[in-house]
């Protein structure tokens, strides 16, 4: 592919993303990274060095997007007596890595999530706040719960539905792969053992097979 073709393809992709996100010029002023986000991004290729994994692309979300996401991350995965919250493990940074990746699934997620954030900002505007993260905690929780309930009741728009689904998927993926997350759900493997003798007595008892 020539350099020119590549740029054209990227430009087309950005334009398409903007179309999906219903992007206006004003919107782009709020999110300057979005217009150029995909232009210089590079995937890790087919032959990676598994011993030195590298994220080969830049993170592209801006400070306001990250602030709002951090609030939402903690609504999705709050702290409790067993494990920390999403923000305590900096999972929003992983979300930034995810939506900035130059792969089709992630590019679609980027459009879904930036659009969803903009919708939340619109609701914040109605409460005289510039951004979702400027609202107080009760307001944030109420708006997010309303979204979740509408998704559950299937009254949400397709975009809102996708926004919720994908955000939860990415936050869960980021969180429950950390040491704290794996410990929370009880993953006990990835250790060398001499023999594999099947489940321990307490599990055998649980399933009624001695």
């Amino acid at each position, binding site marked *: 592919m020539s350099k020119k073709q590549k740029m054209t393809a990227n430009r087309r992709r950005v334009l398409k993303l903007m179309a999906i996100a219903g992007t206006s010029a004003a919107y782009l002023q709020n999110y300057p990274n979005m217009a150029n986000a995909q232009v210089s991004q590079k995937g890790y290729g087919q032959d990676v060095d598994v011993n030195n994994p590298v994220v080969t692309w830049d993170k592209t979300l801006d400070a306001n997007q990250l602030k709002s996401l951090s609030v939402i991350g903690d609504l999705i995965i709050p702290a*409790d007596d067993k494990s920390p919250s999403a923000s305590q493990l900096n999972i929003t940074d992983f979300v930034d890595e995810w939506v900035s990746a130059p792969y089709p699934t992630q590019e679609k997620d980027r459009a879904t999530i930036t659009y969803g954030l903009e919708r939340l900002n619109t609701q914040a505007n109605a409460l005289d706040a510039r951004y979702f993260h400027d609202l107080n905690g009760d307001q944030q929780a109420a708006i997010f719960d309303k979204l979740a309930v509408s998704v559950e009741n299937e009254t949400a728009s397709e975009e809102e539905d996708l926004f919720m689904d994908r955000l939860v998927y990415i936050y869960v993926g980021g969180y429950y792969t950390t040491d704290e997350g794996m410990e929370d759900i009880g993953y006990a493997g990835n250790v060398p053992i001499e023999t594999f003798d099947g489940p321990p007595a307490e599990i055998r008892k649980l399933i009624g097979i001695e």
Partner: protein
Amino acid sequence: MADETEVIVVGSGAGGGMMAHTLTTSGVNVLLLEAGRRYEPESDAAMFQLPKEAPLRGEGTPDKNDGYFDANIGGFEMPGQPYTYENEQFRWWRSRQLGGRTHHFGRQTPRYGPEDFKVQTMTGREVDWPFSYDDIEPFYDRVETIMGIFGPNADEAVYNSPLPPNHIRQKPPAPRASEMIFQKALKKMGIKTMAHPTAILTSPLNGRQACFYATNCIRGCSIGAAFDSVTAYIKPAEQTGNLNIITHAVAYEILTDESGEKATGVRYIDTQSGEKKEVFAKVVVLAPGAMESSRILLNSKSASAPNGLANSSGMVGKYISDTLFTSLWIHIPELDYAPAHNEDGVSQPHVYAPWWLHGDAKEKDGADFSSGYKIEVDPYRGGRFGPPSPNATFRIMLHGQKGLYGKKLKDHMRRYYGSLLGIRTLGGMSVNENCYLSIDPDVKDKWGVPVPRFHWQWSDEDYRRGEHMNKTLHELAKNMGANVIFDAFDKSREAGKIMEIAGEVNHEIGGCRMGDDPTTSVLNEFSQTWDVDNLYIADGAPFVTHVEKNPTLTIMAMSMRAADNIIERLKGNDL
């Protein structure tokens, strides 16, 4: 090392590696062409790396289809190396590394049974192979001895699913909790289960270590416990001093003399320089992967072979097939909130149910299709199998959970981790004339070589087999006390298909099938082409039928049989 290359082997995977091993250990001088780079399992395999260490938590991408740590360089899409398809979509998995796909291989190694080689005789459908189980049995024994295998006690064998003899097999690992529930349910249904024959060591062998029951085999195995072609075949072959390897060599044409009846060598592209090069030998063996073998023959046109080399029968590229696959995602309430315990195991199924309906029982059941299917717990979906990751673990856990967040979400994760998993069936395919590859008249790869165009169409028999597989899985779920949360078959059925996309099981075989008759087959029973005396094929291309047994072991057994034939003929100066 002898001065002259006697045999060129194209491809270093299961078939090519086995071919090089058998030839070189018998004193034959071999040149091995590998399209990709050197791959050293000891240093290149990702063993204990966790998803959190990888970009995107290891999630599959177009660059690394089965995740960042998968030991495969290539996959379904490779830049500059396209392929095309007509009608139903077909996806073609490729590897570019020494050892080929054996690093990514699931290591399941069941033997084909006596009926599987005589499908026409037994069922009146499809065609018979030109040899019988008795002919190939000694080669199964020899291959299993070299690669190392665990499996059930030989006495447990059921009809048409033969097992390695006890002096070869190693002891299998115990079943996991979910597999115990799986076994109990199948027992209730009158279906026998046993350990799955698998090419993983549970005791040391030839300097290779035993499995330590952690990290997924598809990442490659740095301790040599899981079989791969580099560890078990190519390294010992190199030690003989009889093996030369050229990497980054993409073979694309077989050279012949003027008569077209003798192969003289191979043309390849040196992918590092882009140059086209030629190598010569007494014998040429193709083992670049079944689909690539057909492509190379069809692209090797000359005045004496206008339709491609070894294609006087017109059968090159015909009768390709892949494994029929369907699965259910289920919830086992008994395992909700189960205390933490380690279920990594060997990363493959520890137990399975071999196909159980034969003869009168099959007729009574109304199972109106040739080969059957096997049943397993899916070690790549949910459960506690390996470090949790977005695609393998959380996709099933979040399936259908609309609007779930907060404290409820955290509780959901604690409750369902390990109690949501997949059960799957892998079935045979009734080989049919509507599945074939030809050469695309327009599309070429980045080196200007015409690419394959796939044609795919499942047969009515496959639909009936698929429905039967699906029905059995639902019965099994019920007997496991499980709820079905997702049925992949529903989605395919809606689309009027059995599987959404063909080729995705990576068991694509056929295209140069063997037979007794040069007018209806490409190869004789020793995988030698009818038309070109000194040209052999040692990958999955020679397959005649596609049964529910994973093909790799049979590829290797046939490769070894072909190698013996070559050795004999070299000794008798017949080549």
